[in-house]
């Protein structure tokens, strides 16, 4: 039973990790904390679902098309709303992206209704046996896909010029622009990437959690994951996400079921009290 919960917890946890990586990238490059990351998940799923059901597209066409749409969607959002937030007080940025999340959530509700929909998975749903436990193909697929994606991202940031440009912009915007990095382009690309990551995370988890406009609340859980791992650290987001996912499952199994819903937030409060910089974070001191 324990092993079972561990594995399924890792599956959900890797989704939290993906969402957390999504807004960590956005934060690192643009200093904007994106409270609407969960809603990007929801929009990605709904795009897919519309193509699959109304346009009868096969999955292997719909999914990549969704990613392209979402990339453009991210760029549009960045252009319309986010670029005005640069340099503003953190309270303003937080409230603005919360506002954005409300707009996206309820626009989705107006367009696609507030009903719940089943969502197809590219992974087989049958059970696989792994020694002490069995795991559904979907969960296994999620873990495999997430980790592959994380490896891809690692390669992207270390090896490609765009990835390098993003890291440079995060370290020092002015310095990066001086050496020829188009900061505007980096901002757009960052949001495109963030939206794509959100969409992927959504399409991976929607088969299990079903799709409705409130799926975005999963995005809220990514914050404890990011903070636990060390806000601004991508390995931290991964570790944090996995820990939260597993802890939730274990809390739900061995304590009351309702504890599962708030386990992430309890962990968040505890970590904020004893070590706010998280596992991989660095303590910053204000210089006067």
């Amino acid at each position, binding site marked *: 039973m324990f092993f079972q919960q561990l594995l399924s917890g890792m599956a959900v946890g890797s989704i939290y990790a993906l969402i957390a990586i999504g807004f960590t990238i956005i934060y690192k490059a643009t200093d904007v*904390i994106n409270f609407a990351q969960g809603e990007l998940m929801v929009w990605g799923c709904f795009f897919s679902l519309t193509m699959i059901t109304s346009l009868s597209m096969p999955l292997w066409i719909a999914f990549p098309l969704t990613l392209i749409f979402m990339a453009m969607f991210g760029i549009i959002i960045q252009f319309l709303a986010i670029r*005005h937030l640069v340099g503003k007080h953190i309270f*303003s940025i*937080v409230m603005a992206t919360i506002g*954005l999340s409300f707009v996206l959530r309820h626009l989705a*509700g107006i367009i696609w209704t507030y009903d719940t929909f089943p969502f197809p998975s590219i992974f087989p749903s049958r059970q696989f046996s792994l020694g002490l436990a069995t795991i559904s193909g979907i969960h296994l697929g999620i873990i495999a896909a997430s980790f592959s994606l994380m490896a891809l991202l690692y390669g992207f940031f270390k090896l490609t010029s765009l990835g390098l440009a993003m890291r440079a912009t995060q370290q020092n915007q002015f310095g990066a622009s001086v050496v020829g990095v188009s900061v505007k382009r980096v901002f757009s690309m960052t949001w495109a990437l963030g939206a794509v990551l959100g969409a992927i995370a959504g399409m991976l988890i929607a088969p299990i959690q079903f799709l409705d406009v409130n799926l975005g609340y999963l995005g809220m859980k990514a914050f404890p994951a990011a903070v636990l791992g060390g806000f601004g650290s991508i390995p931290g987001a991964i570790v944090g996400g996995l820990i939260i996912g597993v802890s939730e499952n274990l809390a739900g199994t061995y304590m009351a079921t*309702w504890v599962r819903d*708030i386990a992430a937030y309890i962990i968040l409060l505890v970590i904020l009290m004893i070590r*706010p910089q998280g596992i991989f974070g660095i303590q910053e001191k204000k210089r006067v």
Partner: protein
Amino acid sequence: MDIKTNYIDDIKIFEETSKLIWFLFFMVFLLFVPLFAGEYMVYMVSLTAIYVIVALGLNLLSGYAGQISLGHAAFMAIGAYSSSYLTVKLGLPFWFALPASGVITGIVGILLGIAALRLSGFYLAIATMAFAFIVDEVILNWVSVTNGANGIKLPGPSIGPLALKTDTQVYYLIIAITLIMIWAAKNITRSSLGRAFALIRDSETAAETMGVNLFKYKTIAFCISAFYAGIAGSLFAHFLKFISPSNFSLMDSIGFIIMILVGGIGTIPGSVFGAIFITFLPEGIRFLKDIFPFFVVETGLQGLVYGLILLVFIILEPTGLYGRWLIIKRYWENFPLK
């Protein structure tokens, strides 16, 4: 001129006579609402007054002391459910339950303040959000005290042995309590308490080196703010005579933030303007729907509007309704000079 009298002038509640006149106007208006306006207006103004109390508390904490609170509805919930437990389950009278709920919520505020002591900015924001989610879940599941998702029915407010029978009587009680809360908030802002809060917001380091004990004053800010929300929660509960967890959601917390943003952050009139704005917003939406009939959907609209308001206000950064009011006022005062 006697310097002493001058100083006393400066710390009066109404710094300018014009403010006093506006205040009196307002009082007369409020006095006569039940006599000339219908039942619905009495209801709406009562509700607005309750929200004014919440907005005041939130403004003191976030607008003045600079401590972000994204989960303020949770404090209101604690006040509401404390009051319901004290009156319904323990049979205590309303005039005791009201301040007691405030105190209970204030104590929870102190606890959150201590937990959040070293946090600021984003970390404080999500900490308060997490707090709100936890409170929400606890309310849903602590069925013996809160009746869970089914909600609780409550008696109306009473003063001593007199139960207030009509809506009008309840209205006057709520207005009276709101006025007291406004008075207290004004006192805080014109005393060294308000100044200390403001410096904590603008420079914690400077505040500390000027002798402000951060631990003490941040905790006081949380405590007062929670107390206000608790009082409002108790009034809310006995006014509506029924509460359930859905009255205190994230949407409500965000609504409170919008109140102080739109009204005018860090100001007392701003809290009033903001509360009026949010309470009458559904009216405004309904009005728009009559003009633009394609707004068929009812459910999502409030959230959509809240989100748009936030985006517009943050991006355009106006000083809120109160700030706009001051600009207009200054224009007329200086007319015809610029």
